[in-house]
């Protein structure tokens, strides 16, 4: 197993961990953080797959895609955090859904 596929596997692991956290946790901040962890996993997969060209320089196209993705992730996170603050201000809790009585 090459070092590139090791990094890619770590990326897959991060993605799965993040997906688990998105589903399991109720708190919106945890969900936002988990989505960021998922995104980091995807970036790691892309970057590791860019280095498969043997001895030549790594493929620049996935690198450019990742830097685009980072900027989009940052702006989406900022929007999500603002929405979370609004939800917390409106309902008193940073969670979605009905009050759990059962």
């Amino acid at each position, binding site marked *: *197993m*090459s070092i*590139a*596929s090791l990094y*890619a*596997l770590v*990326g*897959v*692991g991060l*993605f*799965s961990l993040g*997906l*688990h956290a998105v*589903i*399991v946790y109720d708190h919106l901040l945890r969900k936002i953080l988990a989505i960021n962890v998922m995104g980091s996993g995807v970036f790691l*997969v892309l970057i590791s*797959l*860019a280095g*498969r*060209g*043997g001895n*030549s*320089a*790594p*493929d*620049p*196209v996935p*690198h*450019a*895609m990742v*830097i*685009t993705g*980072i*900027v*989009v992730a*940052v*702006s*989406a996170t*900022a*929007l999500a*955090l*603002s*929405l979370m*603050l*609004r939800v917390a*201000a409106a309902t008193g809790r940073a969670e979605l859904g009905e009050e759990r009585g059962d």
Partner: protein
Amino acid sequence: MKWIRWLLLPLLLVLATGLGYAVLSLPDQAPGLQSAVAGQLEKSGVTNPVTAVLLNFRGYDTLLEMVVLLLALLGVWSLGASPAACEQSTPGPVLDTLTRLLVPVLVVVAGYLLWAGAHAPGGAFQAGALLGAAGVLLTLTGGRVRNGLGRRALRVALVAGMVAFMAVAVLTLQSGRELLAYPPGQAGVLILLIETAATVSIGVTLAALFLGGDPAEGNER
């Protein structure tokens, strides 16, 4: 509801195994696009392949990315005035001095990264992120630039990158080329022009995103 949790773990394991298998089944050696990029690199106006891809070969990606940044800021601003989180704070003398020393350094490094992007790792996004960090640092330590220019200057800075990009795009269309296909002779200058405007826009947008909410008083950085 408990049993669903127990079902979730095996399902996620199956997904992770599938994804891991997919990643491992890819060939160890793949040619990728680096030879295609390297073949066109001298026409692109820059010598750093990532910058060439970002601002020349796939320029429309970066153009739309500027739009995404602006849309996110519009979304944040549409939620109303900024929350009470950014109240005026009075930093101690050490923090104050550190900020005064750090912010100019950040701006200079941002300028260097912008210039270095043509031939080395760097570019508009890295430089913009540094500018945004400088803005966040100033905000956190209570720095407020009381500018008489107000909201209009802020908005001009926010859209500068996109406007520069669009202007170049329209110019390339007008001169009978494809969208954002720069003439090889002027490509380097055009890329630097776009990147400079984009750096300012990205930095201001990130700082404004951090502030959250429409700055009602028109104070920004």
